[in-house]
């Protein structure tokens, strides 16, 4: 009975062949049995790119609205939300502002459409709430640590050593009240300063702290913009870049502003891993107040570049209605989420397209020609020696 053995061997050989061929064909067959009931559309944001119809799922973080219930923040709400605290007055007339921040490090929230990440937060959001006071006020911030690790708050600005949030961590379940006088006026970051510092910051324990000058600033449509990133796979490179917490959010939810109205942006960069970040405004120029500590602008520009924890105030207004981009001019960051749109409205019911008529285009041409003539007078001085 030698025959069966050859049968077994041949059988083994054939089954290996069948296995090989079936794995080869498997990918084809599994693709063909799609349900053709629904058809979604992909693409079309970029001129020249094809628009596809698919029976499958669409992955499009540039136009998907993130579910507010799972999102780490609501960027539109955060944009213009300034927290002035519970206000009381001391016997000598000083304004006292009380805030409560709750630190936690156990939640998993959506930081980019479809991507969930273990976020460490102040009051449940990245960025944490914007704290605002006037120069000379007494600030009292109570930190409750609901997390599993030591946390603290380190404010930039002027204050005593024991209020610096560096040497005294708050234990899990613990509580501490930071108290100091708000000075000087400007824009400041606040963040957890426990070790490892990078870990505590990159997970999301930061926010913006604004101190207004006593005399105030001119009336404006004010907003806060915090530039950050998320390293969701822990390779010390950011997977996503954002302004105000969710990548691409202001692309599908443009920030509506009014034509000719003064816009003031409190801008802060807290980005980890990458040495710099920047903000570029389309079709416009802005006054830039570095760190916001002076009332005279440092620069008139359309781009500002910042290292980690650098910040400032931008002031501008739009002359023409329409959609305008703002984004990091480090294009990598832009294409990984740090991009947004302003939608400039006329204040009337007139639509954007109606405003882009021939007359206004000619006006622009006239302006640029005269400007060119002016600038040519300055060119030769530097070039020839």
């Amino acid at each position, binding site marked *: 009975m030698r025959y069966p*053995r*050859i049968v077994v*061997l*041949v059988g*083994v*050989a054939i089954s*290996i*062949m069948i*296995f*090989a*061929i079936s*794995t*080869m*064909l*498997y*990918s*084809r067959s*599994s*693709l063909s*049995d*799609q*349900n053709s009931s629904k058809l*979604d559309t*992909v*693409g079309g*944001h970029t001129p*020249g*790119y*094809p*628009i*596809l119809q*698919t*029976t*499958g*799922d*669409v*992955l*499009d*973080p*540039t*136009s998907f609205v993130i579910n507010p219930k799972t999102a780490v923040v609501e960027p539109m709400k955060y944009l213009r939300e300034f927290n002035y605290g519970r206000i009381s007055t001391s016997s000598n007339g000083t304004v006292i502002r009380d805030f409560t921040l709750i630190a936690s490090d156990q939640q998993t929230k959506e*930081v*980019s*459409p*479809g*991507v*969930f*990440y273990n976020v460490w937060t102040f009051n449940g959001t990245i960025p944490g709430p914007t704290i605002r006071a006037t120069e000379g006020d007494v600030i009292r911030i109570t930190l409750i640590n609901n997390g599993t690790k030591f946390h603290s708050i380190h404010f930039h600005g002027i204050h005593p050593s024991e209020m610096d949030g560096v040497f005294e961590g708050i234990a899990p379940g613990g509580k501490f009240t930071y108290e100091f006088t708000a000075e000087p006026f400007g824009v400041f970051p606040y963040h957890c300063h426990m070790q490892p510092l990078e870990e505590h910051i990159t997970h999301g324990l930061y926010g913006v702290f604004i101190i207004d000058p006593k005399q105030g600033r001119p009336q404006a449509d004010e907003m806060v913009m915090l530039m950050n990133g*998320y390293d*969701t*796979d822990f390779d010390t490179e950011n*997977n*996503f870049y954002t302004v105000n917490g969710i*990548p*691409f959010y202001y692309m599908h939810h443009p920030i509506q502003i009014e034509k000719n109205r003064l816009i003031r942006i409190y801008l802060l960069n807290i980005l980890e891993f990458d040495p710099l970040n920047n903000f570029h405004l389309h079709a416009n120029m802005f006054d830039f107040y570095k760190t916001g500590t002076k009332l005279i602008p440092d620069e008139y520009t359309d781009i500002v570049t910042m290292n980690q924890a650098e910040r400032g105030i931008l002031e501008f207004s739009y002359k023409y209605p329409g959609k305008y981009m703002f984004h990091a001019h480090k294009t*990598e960051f832009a*294409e*990984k*989420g740090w991009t947004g749109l302003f939608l400039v409205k006329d204040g009337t019911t007139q639509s954007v397209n109606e405003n882009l008529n021939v007359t206004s285009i000619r006006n622009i041409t006239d302006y640029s020609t005269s400007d060119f003539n002016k600038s040519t007078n300055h060119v030769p001085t530097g070039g020839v020696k």
Partner: protein
Amino acid sequence: MEREEGNIRNTHRISKRTILFGVVPFIVIGAMIVLLLNSPGILFQSSIKPLPEISIEKVEFSDDTIVAFVRNTGPSEITIAQADVNDRIYPAAIEPGQTLTRLADARVIIPFVWNTGEPYSIGITTDDGTRFEKTINSAAPAPRPTVGQASTFALIGTYVGIIPVMMGLVWYPFIRRLSPNKYNFFLSLTAGLLVFLGIDALLESNEIAVNALAPAFNAQILIIMVAIVSFISLLYVSQRLIQRASKRSKPDIEYKTGYSSHSEPEPDLELRDTRSSSTPFQQQLLIRPIAISMMIAIGIGLHNFGEGLAIGAAVLLGEVALSSFLILGFTLHNTTEGLAIVAPMAKSRRIPVIKLIIMGLIAGGPTIMGAWIGGFLYSPIATIIFLSIGAGAIFQVVYSIGSWMYHTNGSRGLLNNHWIIIGFAFGMLIMYLTGLLV
């Protein structure tokens, strides 16, 4: 009668009990599986979510789209959240859907205007934020299964597989006229060529296993496994072939050597005389060369199938820009394969040209098939399996040549003959040098 019946019943009962004993362990295993699956908390509880694992098996470039073929090779279900090109996030479609069960696959279709010849990294991010990446060194339009593309692959296959093997076969008359020592030289040269091919196939499949397949497939073990099984199976088949051929009466010999039966017009009279007076061993000596040549042809055919898969896949994946130089390199490299086929037959009776051509087709033809399959339906695991089968087949052939030389060489032994040593080394050197062209 009664006793016999009793015996039968007895053996029957024993076999029933044997079956029972054989089945009990399976029942225990089954019970364990049921227990573990239905009450996961009882024994093992882990709060750590297993790490996701995705393999991007293939990336195809076509009209303004990039398609990535992804497979979930991790331990649990995965949801794919985003896709990117060169680490820049782009809108994409995923079919059939973004949630992949274990080992399931999907196509990620990214509308993207790409540039021919430039490198691209395709990234896939899962719902926990882990990013997986595959880099394509040079983007090229994916071959489509059209008549034109099929004939291009057929042409490549002909250049790489059939023509060189046929050219090698032309050495047949030359080898027939050689003295025993020089003949031994060419036989061992053949063995050297084949050993090189076998090692080359193993290394290449290892490379694919490391680069294109997830650890979940255990592909490196698979290579060794398939090569060993292929080796012993073919060894067994070839020995059966020779054994049965020698048992049969003389007129059947040709039939039993495995090819084309009655087409030979006139058997060589001289040889027939030798045969009629020969001992079984001498008979074997006459049959074996042809059987060995046939096995070499089959082995090289399997190898060339794998090579064809690799060439087709390389074209598909944009790893290779096909050039005349490359094709020429392959042609020179593979010419030695034809030599390998004819060498063992040199001292047997004259082989009709038609049979040589058939052997050439068996050895070279699969390249075309391989190129078609590799170019149109690329699968790294299938490529690995065929390359390993080819490697096993080739080592079997080397073994056959070795034992053949050992028997024909009489008392001198294999390694005492410097012609054999030089031939073997020279064979590998030839392959190495022609391999530099590829």
